[in-house]
């Protein structure tokens, strides 16, 4: 079961990562933004952390049956891995 503290620290972590993303965005750079594999990898990594925090702590999959943990992890893993592969090729 989730408790109030878990929900609040999850929210804090999510907000902190979101504010951090502000600096990485192409709209933030002056002049013409350049593509960056490093930035994209960091962005996808941070998205994975955020998505998993929401799934596990807000949606309470942390205390759900094994099949649901597996299904949500599979969705996230396959999606972000596909995004990265399509980006790189």
């Amino acid at each position, binding site marked *: 079961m989730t408790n109030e503290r878990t*929900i609040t620290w999850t929210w804090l972590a999510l907000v902190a990562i979101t504010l951090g993303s*502000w600096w990485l965005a*192409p709209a933030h750079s002056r002049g013409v933004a350049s593509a960056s594999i490093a930035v994209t990898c960091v962005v996808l990594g941070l998205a994975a952390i955020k998505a998993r925090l*929401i799934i596990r702590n807000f949606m*309470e999959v942390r205390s759900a049956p094994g099949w*649901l943990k597996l299904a949500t992890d599979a969705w996230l893993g396959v*999606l972000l891995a*596909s995004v990265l592969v399509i*980006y790189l090729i």
Partner: protein
Amino acid sequence: MWVMVLGDLVIFGGYFIVFMIYRSMNPTAFLAAQQHLNITIGVVNTVILLTSSWFVAQAVLCVRGGDPDRAVRLLWGGAASGVAFMVLKCYEWYREIIAGQTNSDMFYSFYYVITGVHLVHLLIGLIVLGVLVRELRTPGRGRVWMIESGATYWHMVDLLWVIIFALLYVMR
């Protein structure tokens, strides 16, 4: 609820993959178009939606703890944050359209469709929150499983937005 949520996640996953395929065909044009997005609006809207999820997650705990009145107040907080997200999203679209960023650009046609379909989900989420408030206010009701199911849907809207934010606003 989870069957519907998983189905929706797969459908959105499809949108994201198609977006990436088109992006990989012309990454320079997509990146240039991305630069016109207002990242500050994107960040503020993300924080608003995360906060709405905080309210709804706390509401579930209150229902379990036998405090439906506080749960209703928290659900109102979640709904108000959802409405704030919608208003800011509409303002963002207005800004982009006025600046000439329309469907004629491939990136922006994805942007309007993906954020638009997401906004429809958020609208459905607001109706769900209304149903939860009604459930808690009806004497003899307040079924915990129903509140948990509605909350799961609301968090899915948040989850999808986190991915949309990364793909449309931040990645290069």
